[in-house]
């Protein structure tokens, strides 16, 4: 019997061995080879005149093919009205996202109904030609959850026209542009509250409310006002909900940058201001120019705003509705305890809340100090009604000495501050062209180390904002800062009088800050940047379903699908359902009559990564970008008779040139 038992076990043994063999052959992995410095490395360095520091910087920034960057920066595209996506530490430009400005590659604003509707929503509310095709983008803001970046959405403002855009980070595309009612210029935007309840947009140049209500400058103090908007964000829909948004009327100072309180200062927002002198210029009449008139007083006012309280006041209906948005009048803001002022060194730029929400750092551009206010002291002073007086509009002013925690002398022209994970702050110093590293006080550092300048590093040149890895969140990462320089002067090969801007990457991990890399920006003047850990983003590689409409972020009912292609005529309207796949459109021949309205629905039915098709009709200013799965609609009037080829504008395949067809517009008899 034993023999048979063995045979049975043996049989089972064969079974098990075969299965194991099968599994293991699949999981064998080759060992990765560690890099060795090639023999010629030193010679290359000598030939190229590289110092040991240069070599170190090169090694710290080089990202080989197929490897990814550790951080992603979302940079304002400045005048381009777009957003730049940049990898750190390689400083490679990954993408330019069309936001306020039509962007042909992405088919943003070149015929697609989806993008056209988004752009149109941001046009001017008054005037005959309301079109806006540029923007002065300043400050991008990543959406936050509990004060930390969550990698879901991105916001950016347009200073020139007071607009806000929402970008969905699933497909890195602009989903919404809001033309803010009543306001015509902004600067303190965009900044989000810790759970992205609101996107804050502080105004800049005071104007009547709304700006389209004319008032002469002689009535500046009476008729002109500042405004701050809290745009309510509906995270589920991924859209700003203007029905829940509100504005707060402010004195006609020029409000500047803002920041939202977090952790212990949750529920509050801080904005600084300039021109509390209410200068309106008149250089042409021999009056002092604005630059002088607005710099007469030593102090301007830091605005301290209780937005949680404002929310209650809005809910209680103590608001005026102007241009379709709820506005809290200035007197209500004062009487309800929503608005307080604190003197701050004049012409400030940054107002930055420390990671724990306990300190507010303000830098006056004409000062040599950063000024640090304690949130606790502010609260105590408000509770004790310890005011040094009121401004001409009745807003209570806290006593500077009651609420200031420290002042750190860091150099001339401090501007904007970011934080690291070790209790340090980094402030850009504009006039000196340096980045200053200094220590925060307790509880970030022991008392003897508190509020001290640590080190300064020269940057090239005229640094505006700076960004450090997640440096404005509740948990900064340290590692890298980037100095966002306004001038590059001699840093790059000359390319004509209009010089690129200069982004300088700085390693902040060591004892000394180390300059690693200069990246020219040749598209506009970016103001501010957000830097997020790359693994917090999880964008789609292709659209999740075939027939996906990126404007609604859902599968479209009207999307043409394979086998359902057709052309239908109804009266003067010709409607086409078309699919695109390597390497053909279906249908390929569209015959219409001059004057017909043509409605084209096109779906890219590809599922392969990167298999994007373009769709351009010659002579009709139409170009779409159809990414795998995407569907889009174009409507136009065939007003030009003749023969108009259409073709795929992405080199999609070997037979890309053959991916074409004809639009035949038969002339009217």
């Amino acid at each position, binding site marked *: *019997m034993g023999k*048979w*038992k063995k*045979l*049975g076990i043996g*049989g089972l043994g*064969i*079974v098990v061995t*075969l*299965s194991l063999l*099968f599994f293991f052959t699949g999981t064998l992995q080759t060992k990765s080879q560690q890099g060795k410095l090639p023999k010629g490395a030193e010679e290359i360095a000598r030939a190229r005149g590289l110092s040991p520091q240069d070599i170190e910087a090169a090694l710290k920034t080089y990202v080989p093919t197929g490897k990814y960057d550790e951080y992603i920066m979302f940079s304002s595209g400045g005048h381009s009205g777009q957003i730049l996506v940049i990898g750190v530490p390689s400083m490679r430009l990954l993408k330019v996202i069309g936001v306020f400005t039509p962007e042909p590659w992405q088919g943003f604003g070149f015929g697609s109904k989806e993008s056209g509707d988004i752009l149109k929503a941001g046009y001017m509310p008054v005037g005959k030609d309301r079109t806006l095709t540029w923007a002065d983008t300043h400050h991008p803001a990543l959406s936050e959850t509990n004060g930390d970046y969550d990698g879901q959405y991105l916001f950016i403002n347009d200073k020139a026209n007071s607009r806000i855009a929402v970008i969905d980070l699933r497909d890195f595309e602009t989903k919404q542009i809001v033309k803010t009612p009543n306001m015509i210029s902004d600067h303190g935007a965009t900044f989000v509250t810790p759970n992205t309840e609101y996107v804050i947009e502080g105004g800049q140049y005071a104007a009547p409310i709304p700006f389209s209500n004319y008032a002469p400058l002689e009535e500046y103090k009476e008729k002109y006002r500042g405004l701050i908007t809290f745009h309510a964000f509906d995270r589920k829909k991924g859209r700003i909900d203007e029905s829940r948004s509100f504005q707060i009327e402010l004195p006609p100072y020029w409000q500047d940058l803002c920041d939202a309180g977090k952790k212990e200062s949750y529920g509050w927002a801080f904005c600084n201001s300039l021109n509390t002198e209410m200068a309106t210029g008149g250089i042409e009449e021999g009056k002092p120019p604005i630059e002088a008139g607005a710099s007469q007083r030593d102090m301007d006012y830091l605005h301290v705003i209780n937005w949680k309280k404002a929310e209650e006041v809005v809910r209680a209906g103590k608001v005026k509705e102007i241009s379709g948005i709820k506005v809290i009048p200035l007197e209500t803001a004062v009487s309800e305890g929503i608005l307080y002022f604190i003197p701050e060194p004049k012409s400030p730029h940054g107002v930055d809340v420390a990671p724990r929400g306990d300190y507010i750092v303000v830098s006056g551009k004409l000062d040599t100090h950063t000024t640090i206010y304690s949130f606790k002291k502010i609260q105590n002073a408000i509770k004790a009604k310890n005011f040094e007086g009121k401004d001409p509009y009745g807003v209570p002013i806290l006593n500077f000495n009651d609420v200031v925690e420290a002042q750190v002398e860091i150099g001339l022209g401090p501007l904007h501050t970011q934080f690291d994970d070790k209790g340090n702050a980094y402030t850009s110093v504009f006039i000196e062209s340096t980045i200053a590293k200094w220590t925060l006080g307790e509880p970030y550092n022991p008392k003897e180390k508190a509020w001290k300048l640590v080190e300064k590093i020269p940057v090239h040149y005229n640094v505006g904002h700076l960004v450090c890895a997640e440096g404005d969140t509740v948990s900064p990462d340290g590692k890298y800062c980037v100095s966002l320089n306004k001038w590059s002067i001699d840093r790059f090969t000359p390319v004509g009088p209009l010089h690129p801007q200069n982004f300088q990457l700085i390693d902040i991990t060591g004892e000394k800050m180390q300059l690693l890399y200069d990246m020219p920006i040749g598209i506009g003047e970016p103001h501010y940047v957000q830097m997020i850990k790359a693994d917090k983003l999880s964008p789609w590689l292709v659209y999740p379903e075939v027939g996906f409409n990126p404007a609604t972020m859902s599968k479209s009912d009207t999307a043409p699908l394979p086998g359902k292609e057709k052309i239908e005529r109804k009266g003067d309207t010709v409607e086409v359902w078309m699919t695109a*796949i*390597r*390497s053909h459109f279906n249908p390929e021949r569209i015959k219409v009559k001059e004057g017909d309205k043509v409605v084209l629905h096109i779906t890219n039915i*590809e*599922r*392969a990564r990167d298999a994007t098709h373009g769709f351009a009709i010659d002579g009709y200013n139409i170009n779409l970008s159809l990414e795998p799965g995407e569907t889009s609609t174009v409507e136009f009037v065939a007003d030009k008779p003749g023969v108009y080829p259409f073709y795929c504008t992405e080199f999609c395949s*070997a*037979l890309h040139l*053959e991916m074409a067809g004809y639009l035949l517009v038969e002339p009217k008899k």
Partner: protein
Amino acid sequence: MQERRESIITSWIPGPILDRKRRIVVAVLSVMAIVFLGLSFMFPYWKVTLKAPQYPQGLHVYVYLNRVEGDTFEVDLLNHYIGMKKLEEAAKLERSLALYIVTLISLFTLFFVFSGKKVMSLFAIPALIFPIGFLLDLFYWLYRFGHDLDPHAPIRFKPFTPTLIGEGKIGQFATIGTLGLGFYLAMISFILVVIALILRFTVCNACPYKEKCSLVCPHLFLWPPRQHQEEKR
């Protein structure tokens, strides 16, 4: 109770019965063979990987008994350039019948356990030819796909047969055909049936009733009465 049952069995099967354990092993192996064959439905029998520079992850097509999965959309898209049929067109009949075929083979294998010596090989044969049959059919379809090319395709290709097992080349694509877990499970099933068959032969050869062997062997699940075992000792 127990005594009564045993007395009934004794009255039905007179005399000692040899190698009870061996027959249990045959039954267990056969049932396992059926289970493995059933399990093989869940795994691909054959897979082909297509490698080209612009597909760093490669394209993978998995052929199951009753379906084709993986990057079929992309492979079909690429195949249309050379006028190859869509993968969905391949072995439609075989795939639609797969479940019935496997059910039938399972039933035959089960019969094999009960069947008499003369017919038992007959019942084992379907399970034994199944894996080979699959490969032959697959080869047939590969041949047809490589030879039945649309003459109006954008790229004209000389008729060919995609490689069944091992590396091949189609245009810029390196193809690697490999057998999948499903096929290995079917092979295991095959081996189990072979072992079971050998065991059955040894049992039947020693069977005292082999002269009176009928279509169905009654000795398999009927435990020999204790008294007979004692007699044997």
